[in-house]
């Protein structure tokens, strides 16, 4: 498989074994620059593991992964993670947590510039007024927004999101999805978003990669061209995809681990 120029992430026959179990045997897929890709799959199929491989938090046993044309080890600075839980430092305020990402990454920026960027990132996620609050003073949704701001503030080309909204209540989750689409449209980042929620994938993605059970492969790719913001009920194509995916998904969960 040859990477086309605008492919920013490429998995080529990736193999990974973990604790005596084969997670990936022959996993191949790619993500284009600026694309919003959702990885959809049953629980325990290795979706988060795929993100960790992209981010060089794990190394594959075989095959090749390239991020921006280079090995993940050399391109970790191009990307930032948003995890399922916010993972904020409880001893830092919201803005200091946003700055923590930048401080950890290092670089030439001085303190004032970092603070300015952190303020911008917080404003982008709608938390400008809450900069001085500690995590415990924020709601679950607000904390996850701080985590998103922390990721955006390091100016990554790629944002890797691991079920970031799954712990939120349904209303907040819906609002956060809409906001994420707005942020994505504004910032033109490449987003790889892991989820096991069919509707979430259909609302967000340019393209859905459907993962199988272990050993995991991509069993279907669905390109979505419906304009955003999307309403699943009103769009015939989305509704059709939804029915399809739910049927496939049910099959996977039945035969799953």
């Amino acid at each position, binding site marked *: 498989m040859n990477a086309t120029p605008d492919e920013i992430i490429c998995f080529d026959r990736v193999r990974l074994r973990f604790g005596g179990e084969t997670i990936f045997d022959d996993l191949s897929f790619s993500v284009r620059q600026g694309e919003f890709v959702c990885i959809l799959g049953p629980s325990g199929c290795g979706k988060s593991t795929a993100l960790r491989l992209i981010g060089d938090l794990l190394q594959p046993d075989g095959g090749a992964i390239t991020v921006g044309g280079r090995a993940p080890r050399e391109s970790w600075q191009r990307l*930032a993670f948003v995890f399922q839980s916010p993972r904020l*430092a*409880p001893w830092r305020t919201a803005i200091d947590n946003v700055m*923590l990402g930048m401080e*950890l*990454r290092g670089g030439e920026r001085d303190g004032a510039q970092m603070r300015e960027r952190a303020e911008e990132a917080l404003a982008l996620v709608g938390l400008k007024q809450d900069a001085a609050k500690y995590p*415990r003073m924020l709601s679950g949704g607000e904390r996850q927004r701080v985590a998103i701001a922390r990721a955006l503030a390091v100016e990554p080309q790629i944002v890797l999101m691991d079920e970031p909204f799954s712990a939120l209540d349904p209303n907040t989750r819906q609002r956060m999805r809409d906001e994420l689409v707005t942020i994505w449209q504004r910032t033109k980042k490449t987003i790889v978003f892991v989820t096991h929620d069919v509707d979430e994938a259909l609302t967000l993605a340019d393209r859905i990669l459907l993962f199988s059970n272990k050993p995991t492969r991509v069993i279907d790719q669905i390109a979505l061209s419906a304009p955003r913001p999307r309403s699943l009920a009103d769009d015939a194509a989305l509704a059709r995809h939804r029915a399809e995916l739910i049927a496939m998904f049910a099959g996977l969960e039945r035969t799953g681990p």
Partner: protein
Amino acid sequence: MRALSLNTRRKLAAHLFVIALLAVWTVAALRLPGYVLPAPLTVLERVGDFFISVKLASHAAASIFHVAAALVLAFAIGTALALAGRYLPITRVLIGRLSAFLNSFSSVGWALLAILWFGLNDIAVIFVIGIILLPIYMINMQAALDQLDSELLEMTASFTRSWPRAFTLVVLPALYPFMLATTRIAFGIAWKVALTAELFGGNSGFGFLVNLARQDIDTSRIFAVIALMIVISFLADHLLFAPLERHLTRHYADA
């Protein structure tokens, strides 16, 4: 009469108890010889001596210095060893054995050895207190490192490959509450060990004074030292450790 609040009644009960105790002490002191039980007022006078006599005050300062120096040393070495055990896996078992060994030997034994090794001086005393505190720091900091939030560490790894930055910005601050809690325990123990260490191996400090007082059968001086030690550790706990812990708890409350 209006009912008093529960808190007020509790405080009242505590005060009454102390007054009753002082009364019993006073009566008992009248009936017993002074070298067995000095009267409360006599002890209070002898406590006052420490605020008048430069020599006595310098002994009090010496004890505070011994405890502080031993705390600093045990903190630094114990934390460093615990970190080594965590980040240099090869040393882990060795360090575990070391802390078990240190933990099982008594302060009197160390005091006798310290006299032979260092003579009767500050170093001997600081060594004895420090070596008793060392395993406390090692074991507690090891437990703290094991309890570090693995998710927070993975987040850190996702943002940096720089070990020093990860350590100073995340690992170290995450350890602060454990460091403080350990120091609070260690301080109480240090104060008790200091008396033993100074008694056997010192040429200054409260323990040294107690040793002299024992030879002179000056029981009221021993009582005065005990009273002062209680006051100093009470003040340290209320004015230093408790406010610090409140501050940290406020800022480290988990989200």
